[in-house]
């Protein structure tokens, strides 16, 4: 079973992350699913009517604006990093947290490595599905990489110049 870093701890994965080509018929009523944006677009009603937990995931070329006024429907929003060097979802994360006030779990999925965790956390991610070949215990340490930050971000609403 995959293990996830969540709120600075390592927990077992309980959600099912569904691929882009999934169809509604493949879902059971009670499991917890993170569905691709396309499924949400087509079947929002049916998805909301289920008993199991609901999350949605966005790829790096999809836009937070599209679910901006619907974030209350999701316990989890996962943002995918096809490569760790694709930085688009850092901006989506900030929009979901700062602009659309998403309060649930914001999870980084895909090519997630320890050396990006500090930045990801600053942008509002509180959960990280570390790439399967890497050790999440070790990755956890990187959340402490820096003890001071200059900019305002989701984790710290004031820039250093308003705190120093």
């Amino acid at each position: 079973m995959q293990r996830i870093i969540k709120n600075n701890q390592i927990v077992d994965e309980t959600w099912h992350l569904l691929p882009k080509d999934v169809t509604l018929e493949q879902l059971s009523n009670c499991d917890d699913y993170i569905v691709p944006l396309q499924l949400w677009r087509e079947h929002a009603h049916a998805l909301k009517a289920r008993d199991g937990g609901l999350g949605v995931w966005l790829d790096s070329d999809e836009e937070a604006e599209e679910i901006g006024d619907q974030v209350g429907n999701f316990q989890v929003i996962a943002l995918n990093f096809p490569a760790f060097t694709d930085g688009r979802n850092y901006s989506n994360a900030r929009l979901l947290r700062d602009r659309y006030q998403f309060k649930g779990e914001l999870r980084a999925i895909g090519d997630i490595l320890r050396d990006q965790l500090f930045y990801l956390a600053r942008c509002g991610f509180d959960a990280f599905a570390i790439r399967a070949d890497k050790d999440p215990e070790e990755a956890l340490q990187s959340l402490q990489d820096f003890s001071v930050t200059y900019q305002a971000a989701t984790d710290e609403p004031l820039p250093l110049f308003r705190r120093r």
Partner: protein
Amino acid sequence: MYVYDEYDQRIIEDRVKQFRDQTRRYLAGELSEEEFRPLRLQNGLYIQRFAPMLRVAVPYGQLTSRQTRMLAKIARDYDKGYAHISTRQNVQYNWPALEDIPEILAELATVQMHAIQTSGNCLRNVTTDQFAGVAADEVIDPRPWCEIVRQWTTFHPEFAYLPRKFKIAINGASSDRAAIEVHDIGLEPVHNAAGELGFRVLVGGGLGRTPVVGAFINEFLPWQDLLSYLDAILRVYNRYGRRDNKYKARIKILVKALTPDVFAEKVEAEMAHLRGGSTTLTEAEVHRVAKHFVDPEYLALSNLDSELDALNNEHPGFARWRTRNTLAHKKPGYVAVTLSLKPTGVAPGDLTDKQLDAVADLAERYSFGQLRTSHEQNIILADVEQRQLHALWLELREGGFATPNIGLLTDIICCPGGDFCSLANAKSIPIAESIQRRFDNLDYLFDIGELDLNISGCMNACGHHHVGHIGILGVDKKGEEFYQVSLGGSASRDASLGKILGPSFAQDAMPDVIEKLINVYVEKRTEDERFIDTYQRIGIDPFKERVYAANH
């Protein structure tokens, strides 16, 4: 000069720790080459032909004597005894060992220096006018703004993985010595009708493969909104800049595709959310930073025009040097002096550990212990007393810094090229040298007058060839090194890109080609016309005809 407080210091020390561990994991095989690459790049570390190249940040070109001595020590202890001033005011080492980099960074941190974000697809070192704070034509001192922007760029969490690198330049004077129009973002101060300070904002300039002069998208940005506006621009770029093709990934391509007007609208739409937020700059912060850049303790002196003119008459060499290598200062009795790193036979911008130590000493004795680097790859002592100018000149001659060629043909901007860089099509340093040798006669050089000659070893344009009055670009022709020449580029106000003269030339033809171009200029110029002026008046054809005329 900005002095770190405990916060600034902690950030760079945390970085040293982080990079030490990253390097350890890489060497232990825990990080793959692919995973380590962006990490090391964001720390200024390229892997080059012979060794890694380390680029150390010199934020907006400002250095103290103490820092300069550390740069000398690193050249001595970890390199082959020299360092290189880059065209973005940074310092590069060509021969450090990868295993030593964490130690080098730790040493740099003891003098408030680092290599953060000096390469990679991230927010890069902010650059400005090398005469900031002392130029007679200054509107505002850009350095506090540079420092404020530097802090904003440092480990910005949202913009660490941009489509491509991102460079910001800030000008503070009426002439533009910071080349802001060929930067991803260019900023310059303006005052509105009410006398309030703001910035004109340009986006989408850049050199490289697709050179572009940027477009101004905001004629008055209130200073309070500066960082929010940068956030807005970067957010638009981070989300919509192309990531499918690295040659189309710079912001200039996005701005062109959208048009500057539409790009500006997108930025404005972001600003509607960000304006008034906590990133809005405060007067307290601007003052906190600005007080590090107050004038040094200038003496009440007067200008020594007649005394210096008398010295001119006695020493023609001094006179010559004075006309080229000194610049008027805002304070009476002072002058800004440029140390030429372009003597013939030395790679442009290179200096040895001993020279670095010597420069540090000179700065201490003549210029309040501070110095600057310029994007033309020279060094500046900004606050020299006129009454000490002659003594300084004598010392500079001893140190090999007094070549009187600032702004002249032999003050060549040149990238490391094929001698060091693995991306090069051709060598660039030997071309620079062969041209310097051809124009070694000072009377001739002075007669030719102001001329920017820039050389890049490939189309990445590290040597800014597009904006040279004469630009030289190394090209590969069936595996052989050739050189393409362009004319009419300019990096100053109303920047322009050079036009290609025609088919490229072999290496040994280059001094002749340049000489022919110069001959056309000398024949056609009117009094007071610089090369670029004559070129703009008569166009490219007369130059073309001369250079490509069949040999008789």
